[in-house]
């Protein structure tokens, strides 16, 4: 029933998705599973209660390769507002590529691989929909001694949920000891993989980068565990909204800065003070004076989901002050939630606003994010 236009690309797990009964949809140029037989709601709940396996092989993986760490980190720092010079080996950090106006070109994860042999290498993972532009942007902006090496032959899997660590330990014992946002090379049932303890659901879990030809064996080994279910893009989206995490192109765009997007956690002290990234003057001014608009979380009364594009108004008026950038029904909460931009004056937690859905004004309250508590792994002291 689902016809796939021939122009779509396939991940190494396409056959497995079909075999598992996934409903495949076009997403960022790939044929991807939006849900499996369980359905979005149960897949979402399963990830919160046990463990979910996600195929995120459509995302763009690459290395930045320079003569030494200081050179490669400096080259990247010229394009992003985060501190990579002081990022320790074996650690990962979230950042954003900026345009000259301080707007966000994409959000990405950057890892400094451990080991002498990896000195001067940074491993990056960018959004599928942005990867061509990102790679072109990096190639255009990087100095001559730092090159971009794309990794199109690599797959990427995410195992997320409170049982992820127990399951992973059966195949890659080393993974159990990793701290949140740590990254290591290891073997998974004897297969060479690159594992980071991170994800995009708000749960503990891992991202496993491997050669395309080994992805199916790894996925099948994980799915053979009764604690693990395959999870599609539908639940991936509802999980990340509950976790308060941004979807590029929606919650953050080329027209919003990291300050407006409320993701200043990606800007470490030295970078905030010294600048030296695109749009620094504007962003530093926003850090001091406060932004004019801010991304906020909203809890919406009643049951009706309010979705991207719905207008936000001041209660009892027709005055539109913003719009939702993500929104829907939150399975964990059994209620609708959303994110959107409002003027800073209306961004305080507890502020009462309204969201227009099919002409009806639904009461909404500005709410601190994440909506659902994060359960990232903290190493025992």
């Amino acid at each position, binding site marked *: *029933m689902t016809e796939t236009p021939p122009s779509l690309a396939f991940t190494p797990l396409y056959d497995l998705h079909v075999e598992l009964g996934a409903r495949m949809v076009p997403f960022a140029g790939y044929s991807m599973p*939006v*849900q499996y037989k369980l*359905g*979005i*709601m*149960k897949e*979402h709940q399963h990830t919160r209660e046990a463990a979910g396996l996600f195929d995120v092989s459509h995302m763009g993986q690459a290395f930045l390769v320079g003569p030494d760490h200081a050179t490669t980190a400096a080259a990247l720092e010229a394009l992003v507002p985060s501190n990579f010079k002081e990022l320790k080996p074996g650690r990962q950090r979230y950042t954003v590529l900026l345009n000259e106006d301080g707007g966000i070109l994409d959000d990405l994860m950057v890892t400094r691989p451990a080991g002498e042999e990896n000195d001067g290498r940074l491993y990056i993972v960018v959004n599928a929909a942005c990867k061509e532009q990102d790679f072109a942007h990096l190639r255009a902006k990087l100095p001559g001694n730092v090159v971009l090496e794309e990794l199109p032959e690599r797959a990427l899997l995410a195992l997320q949920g409170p049982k992820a660590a127990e399951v992973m330990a059966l195949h890659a014992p080393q993974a159990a000891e990793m701290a949140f946002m740590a990254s290591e090379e290891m073997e998974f049932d004897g297969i060479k993989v690159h594992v980071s303890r991170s994800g995009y659901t708000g749960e503990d879990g891992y991202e496993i980068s491997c050669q395309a030809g080994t992805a199916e064996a790894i996925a099948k080994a994980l799915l053979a565990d009764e604690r693990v279910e395959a999870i599609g893009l*539908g639940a991936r989206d*509802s999980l990340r909204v509950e976790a308060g995490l941004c979807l590029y192109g929606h919650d953050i765009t080329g027209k919003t800065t990291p300050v407006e997007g409320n993701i200043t956690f990606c800007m470490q002290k030295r970078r905030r003070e010294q600048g030296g990234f695109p749009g620094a003057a504007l962003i530093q001014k926003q850090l001091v004076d406060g932004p004019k608009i801010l991304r906020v979380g909203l809890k919406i009364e009643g*049951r*009706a*989901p309010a*979705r991207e594009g719905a207008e936000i108004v001041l209660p009892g008026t027709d005055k539109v002050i913003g719009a939702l950038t993500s929104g*829907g*029904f939150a*399975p964990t909460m059994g209620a*609708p939630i959303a994110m959107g931009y409002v003027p800073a004056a209306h961004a305080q937690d507890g502020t009462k606003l309204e969201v227009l859905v*099919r002409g009806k004004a639904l009461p909404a309250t500005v709410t601190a994010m994440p909506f659902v508590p994060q359960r990232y792994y903290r190493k025992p002291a």
Partner: protein
Amino acid sequence: MSTYFTNDHEWIQVEGDTATVGITDYAQAQLGDVVFVELPETGKTLAKGDEAAVVESVKAASEVYAPLDGEIIEGNEVLVDEPAKVNEEPEAGAWFFKMKLANTAQLEELMSADDYKAFVDSL
């Protein structure tokens, strides 16, 4: 009592000039987990093709259209509190609304169960 279908995946059960309208099993499977239903107001007069109800899944919002001209005489309030019923029993307990038909001759434009099955198989 006869049951008819539309190519918008609605079923219509007709008794005299009263029609009970819901969405088909195929439609609920396509929508996925239903989380919200908005029903038409009783007394509202609708023409065939007018937007009558809204059904929202985790993924997206969809409209349920009036399959025939008529007046809404009842909405299934159970769905407001238990929208998941649409997934569980789409062609039975999870009817959306009942309408008093203005023109029963319009029934001839609808599909029979066999026609609908052939239509779904062709999708």
